[in-house]
């Protein structure tokens, strides 16, 4: 598979997942509406609340993340080598120059954030800049710039709005069960069935939604790998950078579960390798990414 068809299939897969997600939410709404007898009015309220919460976190996400990870903005004179790589590749990608941040940590890693290319931030650890060669560094920065160019931050925010919505709906549903439990409305047997399905869904749906979110996240990593290579025209650079990053045993202290999905390679370095735990990974396995890169 060449790079172009790789990008197309990744885009398509992301959209298929988002469409399935919407179908999933509609089904939940239908079941809850039937079960409570309220119809769709409570779904509307849940939508508005989750929309507001997600919009605020989306708008300020970059500031929160940068604050949490202890990153500092740099000028060109602070680190000309790293700054130039970002400058050159954003020219190649046709993006405005993003803000450049550095985390003072010897674990090699990098991330990009910002709600659109005009408010984008590229951040790398000092470990990444010191341990990688110029070509490997280019590969990593190209991957991060591709996240910006592909509007991954926006896609992931839309998905997290949907996940938040599912969780809120489940919560609302369970609460409305407690309060309307013994009011003697005329419940037909049809409603009882929906009630049972509704409770099962309320328990399972937040988990399912999170799994969908993580699988979108993994798809976007593959996409950023492929379109990053389109910028550097040199897959081996990113492949060997990923090898170096993954063989580095040091965990990144500044990262936590909330920010892990942003980094080029999962900063948490968990040891478990079970198929079930891999469902909860934010990143695809590095060996698979390297294999695909080497086949380009």
């Amino acid at each position, binding site marked *: 598979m060449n790079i172009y068809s790789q990008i197309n299939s990744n885009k398509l897969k992301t959209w298929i997942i988002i469409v399935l997600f919407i179908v999933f939410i509609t089904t939940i709404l239908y079941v809850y509406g039937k079960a409570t007898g309220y119809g769709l009015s409570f779904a509307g309220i849940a939508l508005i609340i989750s929309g507001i919460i997600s919009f605020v976190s989306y708008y300020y996400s970059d500031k929160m993340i940068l604050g949490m990870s202890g990153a500092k903005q740099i000028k060109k004179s602070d680190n000309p080598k790293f700054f*130039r790589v970002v400058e050159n590749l954003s020219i*190649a990608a046709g993006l405005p120059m993003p803000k450049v941040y550095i985390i003072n940590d010897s674990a090699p890693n990098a991330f990009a954030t910002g709600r659109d290319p005009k408010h984008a931030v590229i951040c790398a650890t000092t470990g990444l800049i010191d341990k990688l060669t110029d070509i490997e560094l280019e590969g990593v920065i190209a991957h991060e710039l591709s996240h910006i160019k592909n509007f991954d931050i926006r896609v992931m925010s839309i998905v997290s709005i949907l996940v938040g919505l599912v969780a809120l709906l489940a919560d609302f549903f369970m609460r409305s069960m407690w309060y309307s439990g013994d009011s003697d409305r005329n419940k037909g047997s049809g409603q009882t069935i929906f009630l049972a399905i509704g409770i099962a869904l309320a328990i399972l749906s937040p988990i399912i939604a999170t799994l969908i979110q993580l699988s979108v996240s993994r798809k976007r990593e593959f996409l950023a790998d492929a379109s990053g290579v*389109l910028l550097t025209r040199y897959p081996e650079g990113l492949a060997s950078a990923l090898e170096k990053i993954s063989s580095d045993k040091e965990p990144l202290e500044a990262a936590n579960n909330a920010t892990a999905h942003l980094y080029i390679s999962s900063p948490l370095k968990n040891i478990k390798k079970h198929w079930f735990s891999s469902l909860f990974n934010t990143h695809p396995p590095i060996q698979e990414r390297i294999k695909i890169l080497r086949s380009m």
Partner: protein
Amino acid sequence: MDFSLILIGVAVLTALYIWSVYNGLATNKVRIREALSGIDVQFKRRVDLIPNLIETVKGYAKHEKGIFENVTKARSQLLKAETPHDKAQSDNMLTGALKTLFAISENYPTLRASENFKALQEELEDTENKIAYSRQFYNTNVKDYNTTLANFPSGFFGRLFGFAPEEFFEADNAEKKPIKVAF
């Protein structure tokens, strides 16, 4: 009645398709122009660095007149160039002339040691890289645009609206030959 509805549906879809082809091509064309001006920004930076470079080198190597002339000539040609093709060609000339200049500077240790010269050399190298990257961006856009024009049926409608394929930012084949090194 059903048949006419289908006809209307088909007509609306076709109109939507043509509209999107037109908009896509028009957007691409704007992007190509923008990318070209991106290359020009880097050219301008490079051209602005050269008088300074020549002054610095002159201070140490006065009698290398031929080289200064070559560089100045290539520089003014780049300033005059209009089409992407001409620009690419005169940029290549300039690169060649600068290469000779830097090769000759090896003979002047005091020049090589000068901070000013080192800084200029680094700046020029950086500009050269940036030119390469902005060229790549330009060519990517041209490729997208030309692909739409080459495909059917988008290309058919595109040509109907007067869109013509754009030129890649490339030098002539003759200039791609490896440079002969004579000692």
